[in-house]
């Protein structure tokens, strides 16, 4: 889930009318000082960082003057994990409360949790003072009205004006949870000030990754919980995924492998199988440089892009692909994507590829056939070879591997610069070029026959040529599934006259022409 920092969380609360401490966000020491001056000197300086336990780290500073605020901001902003601080008014606290809207996975419905004790962690409160914590499941179709909310506060002994005020606040909190597709939205503490105001002193908001598309206003760059600010490769990977709904491609960089010797690019398929495969890898003394998952039957083109991202991880000693072992996705497509990437980039580390499941025989054959001449060895396995066995094989290959004194030139399946007059058509995420001059009647027929969707045909007149049997528009819209079978077939026939150009995005997206994917 996409977690928002305190400042952004508070903006959500503000938009539904929940009162906040006066204050704002500052990225520089100067801005922080100005804010402190506006607040009259005494204020709170809080680090805006995606970590838990800020108070324990000393990342929430109570200060009495603008000078002290400046000093606090200087110290906090020097921490690499702190891109900004929030400077806000000091509250004079009479009482503190806790409130959160969460999803109860057991009941499959939202639940509001409220406590007359705020400040510390809710688990602690619930353990030590269970009588002061109430939970109320909410019927999505009925709303959570102000009187219902006030009633909830009343259940833990809150009366009078505070009860009414909390009723309004909790009602708004639920509305914010609903409006912004939150997984969870928490205020701890809600402060009742000595002059009787109810103020959200902190905020934890987590937005549902799958609903981020409905909320451009939140400016969430990468709708995934990766535990750190996304780096360049992660942003590139996310751009690939964002523009291609076919199957899933998930990528997180787990560590910076620049200096270590045991890092391996990890290419999984499916959550459970991937975790198990990573365990196997670690048992062999490797560290996964990343987590990657291509599943949900992605086309070869998507697996190709994933492999290209993985091969650009610095300092890897090997490439390990392994999922559950018995996948229903078309594994030969994954093999096609891997082969194209390995050959275009010139694989320089040993790879063990376990593509068990649907049509694995074809996947294994493809890998064996097309990776034979690469600098580094590639071994391919199927469902009857366990992840553990495959990790052992990788260990052996990595230990024994002697890279050539000079790396060979990459051996792409086809040259990227086919003649200008080649036959070309666009696909969902790329372009296919066919140099017609090299076909014979037999080879043209063989290429047409290898297309699983039968979208190609042999031209009616001599000389032999291969062309679309459907409209270019249909091919672009997805009738060409980008399985790469034709490019591999042309390579196998010794023609190398079909090139599929699949551009990679930068961290800011694809070049303008490829926008619509």
């Amino acid at each position, binding site marked *: 889930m996409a977690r928002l920092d305190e400042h952004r969380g508070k903006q959500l609360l503000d938009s539904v009318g929940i009162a906040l401490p006066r204050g704002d966000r500052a990225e520089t020491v100067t801005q922080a000082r100005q804010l402190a001056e506006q607040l009259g000197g005494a204020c709170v300086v809080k680090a805006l960082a995606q970590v838990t336990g800020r108070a324990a780290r000393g990342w929430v500073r109570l200060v009495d003057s603008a000078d002290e605020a400046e000093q606090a901001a200087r110290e906090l902003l020097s921490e690499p994990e702190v891109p900004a601080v929030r400077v806000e008014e000091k509250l004079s606290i009479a009482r503190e409360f806790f409130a959160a809207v969460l999803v109860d996975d057991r009941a499959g419905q939202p639940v509001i949790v409220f406590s007359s004790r705020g400040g510390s962690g809710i688990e602690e409160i619930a353990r030590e003072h269970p009588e002061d914590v109430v939970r109320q499941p909410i019927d999505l179709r009925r709303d959570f009205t102000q009187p219902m909310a006030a009633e909830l506060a009343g259940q833990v002994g809150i009366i009078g004006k505070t009860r009414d005020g909390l009723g309004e606040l909790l009602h708004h909190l639920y509305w914010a949870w609903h409006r912004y597709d939150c997984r969870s939205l928490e205020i701890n503490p809600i402060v009742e000030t000595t002059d009787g105001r109810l103020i959200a002193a902190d905020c934890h908001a987590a937005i*549902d990754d799958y609903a981020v598309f409905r909320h451009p206003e939140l400016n969430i760059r990468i709708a995934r919980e990766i535990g750190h600010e996304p780096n360049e490769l992660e942003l590139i990977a996310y751009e690939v995924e964002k523009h291609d709904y076919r199957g899933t491609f998930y990528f997180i960089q787990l560590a910076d492998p620049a200096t270590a010797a045991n890092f391996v690019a990890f290419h999984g398929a499916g*959550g459970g199988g*991937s975790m*198990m495969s990573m365990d196997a890898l670690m048992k062999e003394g490797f560290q996964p440089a990343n987590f990657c998952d291509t599943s949900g039957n992605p086309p070869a083109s998507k697996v190709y892009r994933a492999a290209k991202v993985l091969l650009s991880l610095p300092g890897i000693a090997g490439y390990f692909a392994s999922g559950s072992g018995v996948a229903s996705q078309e594994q030969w497509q994954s093999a096609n994507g891997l082969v194209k990437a390995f050959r275009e980039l010139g694989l320089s580390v040993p790879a063990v590829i376990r593509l068990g499941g649907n049509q694995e025989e074809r996947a294994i054959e493809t890998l064996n056939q097309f990776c034979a001449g690469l600098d580094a060895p590639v071994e391919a396995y199927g469902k009857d070879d366990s992840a553990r066995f495959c990790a052992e094989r990788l260990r052996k290959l990595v230990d024994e591997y002697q890279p050539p004194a000079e790396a060979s030139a990459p051996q792409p399946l086809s040259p990227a610069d086919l003649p200008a007059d080649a036959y070309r058509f666009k696909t969902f995420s790329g372009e296919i070029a066919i140099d017609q001059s090299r076909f014979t009647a037999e080879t043209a027929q063989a290429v047409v026959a290898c297309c699983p969707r039968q979208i190609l045909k042999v031209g009616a007149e001599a000389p032999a040529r291969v062309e679309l049997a459907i409209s270019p528009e249909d091919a672009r819209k997805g009738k060409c599934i980008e399985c790469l079978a034709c490019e591999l077939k042309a390579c196998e026939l010794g023609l190398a006259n079909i090139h599929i150009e699949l551009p990679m995005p930068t961290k800011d997206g694809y070049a303008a022409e490829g926008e619509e994917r």
Partner: protein
Amino acid sequence: MSILLPDNAQVIVQGITGREGVARTQLMKGYGTNIVGGVTPGRGGQEVEGLPVFDSVAECVAELGEVFASCLFIPAPLVKDATLEAFSAGIKLAVIVPDRVPLHDVLEIKAAAKDYGADFLGPNTLGCVNVNNWVLGMMGGRAESARKFFKPGVVGVTSRSGGITSSMAYYLGQGGVGATTIVHVGGDSVVGLPHPEIVKRFEADEATKAIVMFGEIGGSQEEQVAELIESGQVTKPLIAYIGGKGAKEGTRFSHAGAIIEGGRGTREGKIEALAKAGATIVEDFDKLAEVTKQVLAANGIALADPQ
């Protein structure tokens, strides 16, 4: 007899004209599923695999008679409306294959399912297979390979991980343990029929003599199963493997919905609850078939149903 889908029940596909819809309709039919038609708004009157396509589920039902289940192969943002449409047309089981369905949409579907007395599998599910009879969703690939992968037998299989569902069934089959029905409950944190619901159905299913469950870190599905065993609502032997040894707290590995929040839903906690209730925990995935056979033997259960 099987769980989830009554004998001879009619099944449709929503999104039948799409890339996955066409492919999966063919595969499901090939395996024996009684698919009678499909729906894609705006494509009414067309045919896919010789099956009629309708503009709405209501029209489909009006034409073909009662339909029990619908498999959805449509983009995630459209899932909520399509599922509610299916329920209002009388569908009793929606198999929601798409990944990335917004959580709040799932919660609304959950509330609606209660109102309609309907169920849904998923979202983010590969579906389910009743060995040699039918498949709903996208498990198993081609019929010929699915028949090779999944062997008939007496064990009910339920899993939270898609890939692992097929793997478990396959490795069990290789080890001589066949299955009745194999269910992927879906990878998300909130799903229509979580482990405890599936386990209850296996308990009620005569053909199923024991249950094999693949659990994961996060959520409380496995703990709920432990409660069912403790309270005597589930009496059949249950063998469980809980994945996620390597997962760091707070890190989410892909769509697995596997997240540990605030110490709840840990692997250790789940194993402890299940073991205490009397379930058999398998520590090494490669030993799943072996342990299952031992449990069956200890309970005097034959590997194949004599009927």
